[in-house]
């Protein structure tokens, strides 16, 4: 069974298959005003490419896990995600997302290929 675990404290995404670790990636999650939901979810929709009409932004390799559209997806900003993550953790929460779990392109693509519909997502 496949499972994706998101650690908000560590800003890390880890993927497991039959409880064995498969992948580990850095991520950036929601800011204080738009926190990423915590709990257990399932991926119910996948789409690539994807553009959010709500925020008018690209969200490639989107894997949606909440009814209001929160997803794991590729980060498309001009600054490397590793820098954004460091700023979010060490400087200001302003660098967080609007609740989605942002990933570097290779990480997003890898998870998109790996995780089928109904893959569990656990966020804490």
């Amino acid at each position, binding site marked *: 069974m496949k499972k994706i675990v998101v650690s908000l404290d560590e800003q890390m995404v880890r993927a497991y298959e039959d409880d064995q670790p498969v992948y580990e990636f850095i991520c950036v999650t929601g800011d204080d005003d738009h926190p990423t939901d915590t709990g257990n979810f399932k991926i119910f*929709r996948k*789409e690539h490419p994807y553009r959010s009409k709500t925020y008018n932004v690209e969200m490639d390799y989107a894997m949606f896990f909440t009814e209001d559209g929160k997803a794991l997806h590729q980060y498309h900003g001009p*600054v490397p995600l590793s820098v954004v993550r460091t700023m979010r953790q060490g400087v200001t929460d302003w660098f967080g997302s609007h609740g989605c779990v942002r990933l570097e392109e290779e990480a997003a693509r890898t998870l*998109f290929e790996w995780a089928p*519909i109904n893959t569990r997502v656990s966020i804490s």
Partner: protein
Amino acid sequence: MAAALLLLLAAAVYRDCPAQLLKEGTEIFAVDPGKVIELSYRAPGLRLIASRWEVGDRFSIVFWEKKRPGPAFCPAGPGFEAVLKQLTSLKLRRTLDPGRAAEFFKEKPLSTWDEVVIRDDSALEPFRAMILPVSGVADEALVHFHGSTYVVAFDAKVFQLIAAGCKSLAGSNPNK
């Protein structure tokens, strides 16, 4: 200030890597069929709308053909389930590069392709794609959405099921 400088520096040195191709077999679009509440399909001369009030209900189908005076109505059956299963899981065979796609669109404009729209019970925008059977190929179709064109694994029998309307999509009516 230091943070802003760091950001500017990082942006200046950042190089966006060229996009890599997804592996064959990856679902470029997929949705849990159990969460779908509406599927519409439009092709030249026909239109199909299958909808239900909420997940768990049975789908009701409305089917129009240009050559017939009025729509047909029927409850969904196994034929429709096969259509739903195929359209909610589009597995990549290969990606059409933009240059090749542009050439192809000159011969076969997108306006002549079939259109599928799938709405699930979330707040997300419905999935909308243009779809085209590959002539002479029984297990592939072309799909275009969000500016990308793909060749996907696709059972061509699904096009026949849709074209036959309620004759192939209906199940028995539980109210009769």
